[in-house]
């Protein structure tokens, strides 16, 4: 089974790092993280990202920019809002985004 490449984007350094760590602890997932739009776009362009998790503190205009650039490059990219900040909903969100038609 191919591993899922998951990019976590957030403005809160600790929460973003926590999510990154949690993603990497999950079987079949590889985590990437970014605190800025520039870093997120760079990571997205250099890796075959399957899923983008939008974490805390991302302004509306940044979210629109990210969605626009990422979707232009990969129309099938899944971009979802992550809620809750921790492990409680993370695996559920990944499951819903990637495997539920």
């Amino acid at each position, binding site marked *: 089974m191919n591993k899922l490449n998951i990019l976590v984007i957030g*403005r809160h350094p600790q929460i973003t790092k926590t999510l990154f760590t949690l993603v990497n602890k999950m079987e079949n997932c590889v985590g990437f993280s970014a605190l800025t739009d520039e870093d997120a776009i760079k990571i997205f362009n250099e890796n075959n990202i399957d899923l983008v998790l939008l974490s805390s503190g991302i302004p509306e205009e940044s979210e629109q920019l990210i969605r626009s650039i990422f979707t232009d490059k990969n129309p099938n990219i899944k971009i979802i809002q992550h809620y*809750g*900040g921790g492990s409680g909903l993370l695996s559920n969100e990944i499951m819903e985004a990637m495997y539920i038609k």
Partner: protein
Amino acid sequence: MENIILHKADTRGNADHGWLKSKHTFSFANYYNPDRMHFGVLRVLNDDSVEGGMGFGTHPHDNMEIISIPLEGDLQHKDSMNNVAVIKSGDIQVMSAGTGIYHSEYNKNHDKLVKFLQIWVFPNKKNVTPRYDQITLNLADRHNNLQQILSPNQDDAGVWIHQDAWFSLGKFDKDFSVQYQTKRKENGVYIFVLKGDLTINNITVNTRDGIGITNTENIDIKALTQDAEILVMDVPMTVA
């Protein structure tokens, strides 16, 4: 025409970590059931029991309204906004996680369990400034009455959250009946039975069952047993 979903207590997700035993009404952590993801903006309803002295170490939250209702024992809370508090049965605690907070929760006592409901509600606004509040409720106010414990309004009874949601608690004598009127036409109502047997719109429910009702403005509640207790959650059915 009203729509009703019934979640019997024994169909909930089960987690046993030794120090923590939890029943999940909706999918949470390792429990995943695509038919049990949420009821409108009500995303998490966990029925937790924590061993003496144990608890949840420091962990983050963001963009979620988190409500804790202790049922037995004392829960010690510390967070990144410098709040240090103990909540006990009769209290209600609320956190608007917004842009992000860290907190820990421990059973303050070493010789008895703490039991509490942990409820997560999707906010109607992302990235709000984090906020913490707790209040002590007057238990007498819920005897044969639905005591409002949460609303969207700062100047209303109970705590408030960033969502058009209202919660109420009731403790009823046997055969007491009451009609609940939904607060907004767009809302649905999820009733969680804390204790006892009741009928909700003529459907019999028992301890720890949950029943969700939409497309109705009035809900008929009748206690079949003495001291039946319920939590009523009146929530928007659309996640913004």
